[in-house]
Structure formats: structure tokens, C-alpha cells
């Protein structure tokens, strides 16, 4: 019999019961909750007179709507405020631990889970947010769910699912200087397309992936959903275990040896077989920039905006033409000639301490270009912010002309006051460049923190290696 993939192992160890047609009840170890996708779920529980199955398995924080400046004034937008207050009330009523807006540990739900050790290897982790795939970096089966499922998990600690297929994306070799996890995942999405992973769980493997830090692996798994996969995974290694040790929700000393032994088994067997395999060479990956309105519309920094006339598939061609119109770009124009208006460094993709350090290293000693109307750094959590300030990174950004904000989703989706105006162009470290994502008519280019920082200084996209000192 063939061996098991990591996904097979995680799945098998969480099966509560299985019907003949493959419909399975799987157990959920950790449920993360935020303000946008939960109010209707709590309301549903109340209406049906249901209680929580296991309050301690839940952890909540507001992130999507919270202001990232002048937080002491509270939330100005009354609709946003009601939503955040509703989460506060629901957490009190149902006995869920919440890191509220004024808690130093508050932050983007996908940053605080791992930071707290609330995400552990071998767990099933869900959240009413598609970027829950982030937590797969810890060899946890982690996926986004809808609000009905949020309610289902609250009430039963289970999900009804069918098993997905296994896909493996292997990246072997060494990444070049200035190439980050973000570039790797953008290159993967460019290769397989935004529906390439649909119906699959993607395991990321290969020496280049092994070489990424835990933060880098989170960036990678975060965007598995942009490749169509509900979940992304990276096997456990010593780095994983090292990262997890000693965090507030991590296992107690007495359980550690047993836990670590269990975790070390969380990898695909050598003879496991995958339904599909994709290979990339690390050496081929250059810093990536998205040019269109879908995360698969990506090219390298040294390329030009592609020409729709070269595309043979008529549906795709039409999509490219629409995208270029929306983005206000001409086919054939050099990526480095694209002038920017705003810079956003943040989001659950790239707002961890390592991202902020990498951006600060580029920014240090430079000034934001005069043509950039706004450049901001929004740390992923209160603890990331604190850490960065202890390292003096806030001053590096502020001296250069960046705004240094409080943690939250911010301009990743512009649900709070941070947004692009019609026609404004932004280099953003977030994960989605859909029309209107960062504000109606706003134009988003997805890049790594390194590229975003370099673009802030130059005013246009530039290979960071070419930035003058």
C-alpha cells in the first residue's frame, strides 16, 4: 500500500464519522473568530437556543474594521463600530476569549494564531476567512469557512466535508537575493492559475521551501487560496518545533516530549502519491509584480506588461483587456516604468516581524519619493508592532516619510478608513488585486515587502538591487 501524504494523515486523524458517499464529519481543534463573518452565526445560535460545544477551542479578535490610527478615539464609522461591539458582546455571552481592540495582543487573526501558539502542528484550524490557509505553514489542516460553517463549528466543533485531492508543489534550489516567499507564491499562482488548486490541498515541498523561515512559510500558505486551494501545507521540521515552543497556548512542559514526537511524524511518507505535481526551480524565480486584476496576472520585475493579442484563449484575452483597462496600463510597457501613488506594507500575507525588518532594511537612510502621496506600514499585531519598536524600526519608517500604524487589516480590503481613491495606484504587500479591493477604482499591484519598500523610495517599481545608496 502506498504511503500517506501529510494531508491524508491530518485528515485521517480528525475523522469523527464518515458516510458511505464520502461525506465526513471532521473534528476542529481551533476556531478563530473575527467580527465580519461571525455576527450572523452567533445570531443563529441564539435563535435556535444552542450553546457552544467547546468554548476553549475558540479565540477571537477584531481586525477587519478596526482603525489603525487614533484608536483611543474609538471607531468613528457607526456601522463598523456596531460590528466590533457585537463581537465583544458575543464573546462575553458565549464565554470566548477575545483580544479586544485595546488589548496589546490584538491583531490580524492569522498573525495572532501562530504568535500565541494557538495554531499548532497537527491541528485542524478554521476561521470565517479564506486566508486561514496561512496556518498550514505549521502542518495544521487550516481552511476558510463560510458563516453557516462558523455556526456549525461553534455548535458542534465539527465540519461536514469531503476530502480534497492531494497536490504537491515542489520548489527546489536556492532563491536569489531579494527573492522572498511572496515571490515564490506569486510565481506558483502565475504558473498554475487561480483555479489551479481548486478541489485540492496543496503541500509545498522542496529545498527552497525548507529554506524559508516560518514567517515565509506563512506567506506562502496564506496565498494557497489565491491558487484555488482551500488549504496549503508545509511539513514539520525542527524550525516548526522551535517556533512553536514556549508560546502562551503551546503545550505545557509536561506534554512537550509527547507533542514533539507526534509533530515529527507530520510529513508525507516517501512513497506517498499525489493526484498532481508541479515543479518549479528556485533559480528561475525573480521578484514578482502583479499587473492585472487577478493574482495570476503576474510578471517579473524586469518584464513588460503582457499583450492580450498574444493570448489565444478568447475568454482569457477578454479578461486581460478588461484588466489592462481597469489598471490603466498599456501592453508592452516596462514594469519598472509604472509610477505609484501609494504604498501599503501590511496584511496577513506580509505584516510579520520579518516582513517589517526586510522592508526597513531597504528603507533605512532613504526618503519616500515626493510623488508618493501616502506610504504606510501596518504591523500584523500589537506584539509585532511592539517588537519592531524595540528594534527601532518604527523610526526608520517614520524618518523616511512612512506612516506607522496600529495593527489591523487596513488597506488590504479597505473596510476601515484606509483606502485607495478612484484611479490611485498602489504597491501593496497584500494578497488580492481584484477590482475595487483596496477602494473603488483603486489599482493594486501585489508585491513583496522588499519591492514595496523599494518602490516607495523610487516612486516606481525597481529591482531593490538597483536602488542607489
Amino acid at each position: 500500500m502506498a504511503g500517506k501524504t501529510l494531508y491524508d494523515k491530518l485528515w485521517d486523524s480528525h475523522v469523527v464519522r464518515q458516510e458511505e458517499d464520502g461525506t465526513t464529519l471532521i473534528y476542529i481543534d481551533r476556531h478563530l473568530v473575527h467580527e465580519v463573518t461571525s455576527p450572523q452565526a452567533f445570531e443563529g445560535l441564539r435563535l435556535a437556543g444552542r450553546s457552544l460545544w467547546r468554548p476553549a477551542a475558540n479565540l477571537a479578535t477584531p481586525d477587519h474594521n478596526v482603525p489603525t490610527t487614533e484608536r483611543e478615539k474609538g471607531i468613528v464609522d457607526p456601522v463598523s463600530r456596531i460590528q466590533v461591539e457585537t463581537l465583544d458582546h458575543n464573546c462575553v455571552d458565549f464565554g470566548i476569549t477575545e483580544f479586544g481592540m485595546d488589548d496589546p495582543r490584538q491583531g490580524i487573526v492569522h498573525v495572532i494564531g501562530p504568535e500565541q501558539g494557538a495554531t499548532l502542528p497537527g491541528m485542524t484550524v478554521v476561521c470565517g476567512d479564506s486566508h486561514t490557509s496561512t496556518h498550514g505553514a505549521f502542518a495544521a489542516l487550516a481552511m476558510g469557512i463560510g458563516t453557516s460553517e462558523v455556526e456549525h463549528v461553534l455548535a458542534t466543533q465539527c465540519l461536514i466535508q469531503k476530502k480534497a485531492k492531494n497536490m504537491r508543489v515542489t520548489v527546489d534550489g536556492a532563491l536569489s537575493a531579494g527573492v522572498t516567499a511572496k515571490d515564490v507564491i506569486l510565481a506558483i499562482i502565475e504558473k498554475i492559475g487561480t483555479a489551479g488548486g481548486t478541489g485540492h490541498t496543496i503541500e509545498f515541498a522542496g529545498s527552497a521551501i525548507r529554506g524559508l523561515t516560518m514567517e515565509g512559510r506563512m506567506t506562502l500558505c496564506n496565498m494557497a487560496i489565491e491558487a484555488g486551494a482551500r488549504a496549503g501545507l508545509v511539513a514539520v521540521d525542527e524550525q516548526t518545533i522551535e517556533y512553536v515552543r514556549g508560546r502562551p497556548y503551546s503545550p505545557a512542559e509536561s506534554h512537550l516530549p509527547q507533542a514533539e514526537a507526534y509533530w515529527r511524524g507530520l510529513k508525507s511518507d516517501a512513497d506517498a502519491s499525489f493526484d498532481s505535481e508541479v515543479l518549479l526551480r528556485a533559480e528561475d524565480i525573480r521578484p514578482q509584480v502583479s499587473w492585472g486584476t487577478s493574482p495570476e496576472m503576474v510578471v517579473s520585475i524586469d518584464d513588460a506588461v503582457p499583450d492580450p493579442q498574444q493570448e489565444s484563449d478568447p475568454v482569457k484575452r477578454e479578461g486581460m483587456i478588461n484588466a489592462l483597462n481597469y489598471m490603466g496600463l498599456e501592453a508592452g510597457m516596462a514594469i519598472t516604468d509604472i509610477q505609484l501613488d501609494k504604498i501599503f506594507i501590511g496584511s496577513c500575507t506580509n505584516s510579520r516581524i520579518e516582513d517589517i525588518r526586510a522592508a526597513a532594511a531597504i528603507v533605512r537612510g532613504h526618503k519616500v519619493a515626493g510623488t508618493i502621496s501616502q506610504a504606510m506600514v501596518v504591523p500584523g499585531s500589537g506584539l509585532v508592532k511592539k517588537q519592531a519598536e524595540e528594534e527601532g524600526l518604527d523610526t526608520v519608517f517614520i524618518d523616511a516619510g512612512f506612516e506607522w500604524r496600529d495593527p489591523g487589516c487596513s488597506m488590504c480590503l479597505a473596510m476601515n478608513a484606509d483606502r485607495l481613491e478612484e484611479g490611485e495606484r498602489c504597491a501593496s504587500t497584500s494578497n488580492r488585486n481584484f477590482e475595487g479591493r483596496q477602494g473603488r477604482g483603486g489599482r493594486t499591484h501585489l508585491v513583496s515587502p522588499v519591492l514595496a519598500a523599494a518602490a516607495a523610495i523610487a516612486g516606481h517599481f525597481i529591482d531593490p538591487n538597483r536602488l542607489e545608496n
Partner: protein
Amino acid sequence: MEKFTMVEAIVAPLDRPNVDTDAIIPKQFLKSIKRSGFGPNLFDEWRYLDVGEPGQDNSKRPLNEDFVLNQPRYQGARILLARENFGCGSSREHAPWALEDFGIKVIIAPSFADIFYNNCFKNGILPIVLNEKTVDDLFTAVEQNPGYKLIVNLPDQVITTPDATTINFDVDSFRKHSLLQGLDDIGLTLQHVNDIRAYEQRSCKLTPWLFKDMQCK
């Protein structure tokens, strides 16, 4: 949830790939803490010429006459014909809520994003996957024939076109059953309380650090 059986309705063609949930219901409407009332803001940025905000009187807003759902020939559409990877992006269930509130009962596409696909069933919407060629032919037929209607029969898993051609489709038996009966998943799962408890006891031994809040026997 309302029971789903048979739908005979006008088909509206939305001819673009990768329609994401941000496009289906823009984020400013996600601030609602209710489940209903999203229909008037379905495809808000494409449907209206001005900027939509929660709490507006939508009947007074300028319409984008070119947008498919605003065209007179597609009024009353209950079936949406779409392209590949429909419903990609954010997991927001507000997307099927908006579609359902607008009156859409069936969506036909060559492929759907997983989370959206799943969310549809939980809200009484039937997503149907047909191969690209069939979808292409349907687009042509809809565009050429004003008033084009399809009959979608879930019990028999068959679509009938105006010229009586039939197209079979697949649907997972569990989901079909739930849709037909209008069943609530939570109620179904809670019939298996003993299985869930037994699982917890088993796992409590294997991975005790995940069950610090529980008594393991």
C-alpha cells in the same frame, strides 16, 4: 431553509471569468450584522454608476444600463450563467446571501471556487458545474434568444432547454438531500453527539495538549 425542487426561469449570462466575492457583494456591505437585505447591492459596482454605501435608498441610484442584470430582457432571472472560477476570493457568505436575496436559485459555470460552492448549498442555491463546451453553447443560446429559459430539475439532476434538449448534471448526494429537504446541517450533526464525544476521548489520549480544557478518561 426553503426546500429546493424545480426551477423554471430566465437565464442571465455573466460573461467574465474569475468573478470574485468582492464583485458579488462589495466589502462596505459586510458591516451588516444581519443575514438578509443584501440583494439590492448584488454586483453593486457593476450594477450602479455611483458609489454604493450601506443604508442608501438603492431605488434612487443611477443604474448602469449595460450591466446584464439591468437589461430588460433579463428581468426576473433566477438562473445565472457564469464563467470559470466563479465565486473566488473571500469566503464571505454574504455573496450567496446577496444572490439568494436577489432571487438567484441556480448558478451554472464550468467551475466554482470551493468555499463559495459550499456556501451556496447552505443557502438554498444550487451551483451546477457543466463542461466548458456546454457552458459556451448556453451562452450563445441565451444571447441569441430573448426570454431564454431553462428548467432545472434537481431530483432528476437534469436541465431542459427550450428546444427540449436535456443536460444531466452531477450533485453530491448528501448536499442534494439537504437542499431538497431544506435541512439544517447543525441539527443533522447533533444527531451524532456520541460520535463526537467518542472522538474527543480518543484524541485526548493521543494529543492531550489539545484538550487542556477537558477531562480525559
